[in-house]
């Protein structure tokens, strides 16, 4: 654009340049959009050809299964509460897997995040090591760990719990360390000046500052983990997912039980969702009276 500076900047050239620039920008955006649309369409086509049934063949049947389940549940409506009661222990197990793994994962996340935050770390040289540990544990999908542990330990809630806890430690660790970075360092300096050890500095200087945000993230994670725990049950880790799989592969005749399980799972997720969003709001924005 050196010639622009030397030639006279009359309004015409500026306007022409602007129009040309806009046209170029539009062309690029248009091409990007076209590329994107082609990518999506061809992607769906590829996925469709690899699928057992096609999209257009299946779209009509979309409501068949829900309709079957609902009609069977409707026919045995009086038994539904009984089924819900019957599967409550399985639901409790699914919830316990999620709760325990959140608790354990969060505990590890706290330590990992404190060790990998600049300014707080106990061993500043090892910060990259702890960060990579968090990256790796975050990258491991729960199903990988769960399946391997099921092979070693046999089925049951513990493999799923460990698998979710490992992923939670990495995922929460990253969020926690972002929170830690915003912590005020003055209380820590103060504590250091009176001879507090590293754990005392963290416990008394950092934790009170960041605990509300930590708790908020942990609650959000609990929601996610309940879903994960239900899914892992489906591949053999116990809890409601496992019962659901059995009821579904049984086919018609046990759809009423499946419906009962759908309902209690849906309700649990909704309740946890609502309760946690209420508490998260309070934790981050303070209680209604105080703010």
């Amino acid at each position, binding site marked *: 654009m050196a010639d622009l500076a030397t030639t006279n900047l009359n309004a015409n050239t500026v306007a022409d340049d602007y129009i040309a620039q806009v046209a170029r920008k539009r062309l690029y955006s248009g091409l990007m959009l076209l590329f994107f649309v082609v990518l999506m369409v061809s992607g769906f086509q590829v996925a469709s050809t690899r699928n057992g*049934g096609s999209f257009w063949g299946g779209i009509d049947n979309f409501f*068949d299964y829900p309709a079957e389940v609902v009609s069977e549940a409707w026919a045995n409506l009086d038994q539904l509460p009984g089924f819900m009661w019957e599967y409550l222990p399985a639901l409790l197990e699914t919830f316990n897997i999620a709760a325990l793994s959140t608790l354990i994962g969060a505990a590890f996340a706290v330590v990992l995040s404190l060790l990998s935050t600049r300014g707080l770390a106990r061993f500043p040289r090892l910060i990259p090591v702890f960060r990579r540990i968090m990256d790796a544990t975050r990258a491991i999908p729960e199903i990988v760990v769960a399946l391997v542990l099921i092979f070693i*330990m046999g089925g049951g809630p513990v493999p799923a719990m460990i698998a979710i806890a490992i992923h939670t430690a990495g995922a929460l660790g990253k969020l926690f360390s972002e929170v830690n970075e915003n912590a005020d360092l003055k209380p820590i300096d103060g504590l250091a000046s009176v001879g507090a050890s590293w754990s005392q500095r963290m416990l008394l200087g950092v934790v009170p500052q960041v605990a509300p945000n930590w708790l908020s993230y942990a609650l959000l994670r609990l929601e996610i983990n309940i879903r994960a725990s*239900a899914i892992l049950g489906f*591949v053999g880790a116990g809890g409601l997912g496992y019962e659901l799989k059995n009821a579904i592969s049984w086919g018609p005749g046990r759809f009423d039980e499946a419906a009962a399980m759908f309902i209690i799972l849906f309700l649990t997720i909704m309740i946890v969702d609502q309760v946690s969003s209420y508490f998260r709001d309070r934790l981050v924005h303070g209680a209604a009276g105080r703010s």
Partner: protein
Amino acid sequence: MAMLDSSADLSLQATQLFRRKRMTTFAVLLAIVAYFAYIFVAFDIPALWQRANAENAKTLVADAYSYKTHVTMDNRNSEITVSIEGDRKARYTEANEPDWVVRGDETTEIDLGDGHLVTFAPNFVTYDVPDFGLMTFEVSRSRGVIQTYPVDADQLPDWISASKNRVGITTDAGRLSVTRNRSEVFRYFNGWELFFFALESPYYGKSFGEISGLALNGEAAAIFHDFWHNPLWRHGAVVWALFETILMAFLGTLGAAILALPLAFMAARNFAPLFAVRFAVRRFFDFVRGVDALIWTIILTRAFGLGPLTGALAILITDSGTFGKIFSEALENVDSKQIEGIQSTGAKPLQRYRFGVLPQIIPVLLSQVLYFLESNTRSATVIGAITGGGIGLMLVQAIITQKDWEEVSYYIVLIILMVMFMDWFSGWLRKRLIRGK
């Protein structure tokens, strides 16, 4: 708000506050301990140690970095085959057999190293273990396996398990098992055998230098073909499965975003003045989000069959609820001044949205979409295991067959690398798109 407490009062208050806080902390800790105690009972932890199978763990770890070559003799016709992992697709021919198997006229000698020597002959097998002696096993159709040991039969060491019809011997050098139907020797080696080329490939056993030399001489395509279609490791299929998993995540995430954007306008207070519409759309989002991905997966599998499309649609439906919620919140936070500015130039509603609203929410939108793209790669692995698509399915199959743990560890490494790559890629794209080039 000047409080005229005396210092004594203040210290009393402070002490009380401290005591209350301490009590709260103590109560929380107690609750957690009580919860752990409850879990200990509810998850039946003591029984876990009994159920846990250390042998499985050992095979898993050993198999992850080593492989075994089977030398098998069919005791009915004395035919001997040498193959890797006993796999039909990895059977040696007479020509390329390993040199530790020496075939004679009548007997075949198998050298397990460190002085361990096994001999296969029609109807009998011998195993010479250093510092122990020669064992002979005669196979008889009517009387089972007739065993001769250098020690008395009741003083057998615990690495020999013997019964009338079966003998199993495990030493550091390998394993021998003899039954009426067949005799089999395993010898263990480190590494992932045949990872690059199968036995029948002309490139098997060649060094990297030789291969690159051949590649330069115009055989690159043939070399790649043999590698890609390796019947044991199936590299082509694995790469395709990885692609399928990423495809599921991509289609699901972007499809959800496209579906959620117009709906989000209907759920935002400042764009949908009608309360009923807003309420309906918001409850719809809640419903879609609340019905777990698992349930959607089940419903969709019934309608569309197994495959990647089903997985993509499951992600699409679940995430459209989440995106709808996030997008509508972002829309409620847009600055109305820009929209008014556009409106003052006489722009129609669609133009107002395009030039007044979209530029404001695009950064939020993109960063959320990219974040979900990364996390959905992980979900797609899990959903693929249920709906039958992608690397998740291959992993589950490999684990269920419980045969090839080196394949399992290979898939696990690939999955972790894939997720890390998507993590890095979405971060890179986010930086480029949002913070400018």
